[in-house]
C-alpha cells in the first residue's frame, strides 16, 4: 500500500498503439512495478467492447471511412464507444491485489474521479450503478470500460471535454439511446487538454491515495 503511482501523459496517440503500451505496462505492474496512470487522447476511433451488438453501429462503413473514423476491437467490457480528440482518456494500470481485489469498488472510484474532475468546471455529474458511466443530468459525459489481467487493470474512462459530439451520431453509445455531452457543451469552456489531464490526475490520485490511507 501507499506505493507511488507513475503518471504518463502521452498526448494524441492511436488507439491500437495505446493498447500496446497498456499491455506492456500491465506486464510491468504484474512483475511488481508501480501502478501507472496513462493519459491520452485518440484520433476518431470506434472501439468494440466484448458486449458490442453490431446494430449499435448506426453509420455505414463508407461514412466511417469518409469521416476518417477508425474501428478497433477492444478487450474490455461494454458495448461500442467512440474516442476522438478532445476526449480525455485515462487508463489506470493498477494492481488490485494490493487494493482488496474489488472490481466493483475500483469501478466506482474511477467514476468518482471523473465526477470530481467535472465538479471543477461546475458540472454536477454522477455515476449510475445500473448503467455505469458518468452522467450530467440525462446526458452521458464519460464512458467506462475496463479489462483486468491477473488483477491488474487496463482500459479505463473517457471523459468528453471538447469532443466533437456529432461523431456520436455514428453509434448508439454503449448500446444506449442517450445523448452524449461534454464540458464544452455544458459550460462553454474549452480547457487545454494538458490542463484537463493535470486536473484529472489530481482527483484520481487523491481518491486512490485516500484509499491507501484508510486501508
Amino acid at each position: 500500500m501507499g506505493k507511488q503511482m507513475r503518471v504518463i501523459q502521452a498526448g494524441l496517440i492511436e488507439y491500437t498503439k495505446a493498447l500496446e503500451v497498456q499491455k506492456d505496462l500491465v506486464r510491468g505492474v504484474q512483475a511488481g512495478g508501480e501502478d501507472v496512470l496513462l493519459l491520452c487522447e485518440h484520433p476518431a476511433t470506434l472501439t468494440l467492447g466484448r458486449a458490442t451488438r453490431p446494430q449499435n453501429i448506426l453509420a455505414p462503413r463508407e461514412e466511417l471511412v469518409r469521416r476518417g473514423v477508425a474501428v478497433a476491437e477492444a478487450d474490455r467490457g461494454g458495448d461500442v464507444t467512440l474516442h476522438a480528440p478532445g476526449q480525455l482518456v485515462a487508463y489506470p494500470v493498477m494492481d488490485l491485489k494490493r487494493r482488496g481485489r474489488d472490481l466493483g469498488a475500483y469501478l466506482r472510484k474511477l467514476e468518482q474521479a471523473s465526477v470530481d474532475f467535472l465538479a471543477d468546471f461546475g458540472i454536477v455529474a454522477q455515476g449510475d450503478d445500473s448503467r455505469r458511466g458518468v452522467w450530467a443530468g440525462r446526458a452521458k459525459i464519460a464512458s467506462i470500460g475496463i479489462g483486468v489481467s491477473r488483477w491488474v487493470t487496463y482500459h479505463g474512462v473517457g471523459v468528453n471535454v471538447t469532443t466533437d459530439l456529432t461523431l456520436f451520431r455514428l453509434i448508439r453509445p454503449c448500446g444506449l439511446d442517450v445523448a452524449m455531452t461534454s464540458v464544452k457543451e455544458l459550460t462553454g469552456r474549452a480547457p487545454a487538454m494538458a490542463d484537463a489531464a493535470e486536473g484529472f490526475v489530481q482527483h484520481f490520485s487523491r481518491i486512490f491515495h485516500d484509499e491507501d490511507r484508510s486501508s
Partner: protein
Amino acid sequence: MTKIVLPELGEGITQARVVRWNFREGQQVTPADDVVELVTDKAVFNVPAPASGAITRIYYKEGQEAPVGAVLADLA
C-alpha cells in the same frame, strides 16, 4: 482434482458471463495460461489455471452466466 473457480470480484458483482474458453476439454494448461475470459457489465477479465493439468470438464459454455464461486471447470 483441482477446480477452476470464478473468484469473488468485489462489492456488488455477483456473476459474470463466459466470453471465451481459450482451451478445450482434454487440453493441458499451466498456471501461466489464462484459461477462460469472462465479462461483467463493464469489465473483462481472465481466470488463470490454479495448477498444471488437463481440463477434464467445462461446466459453463460460452455465453452462459456463472455466479461468483462457481466451478467453471475441473482439472486433473
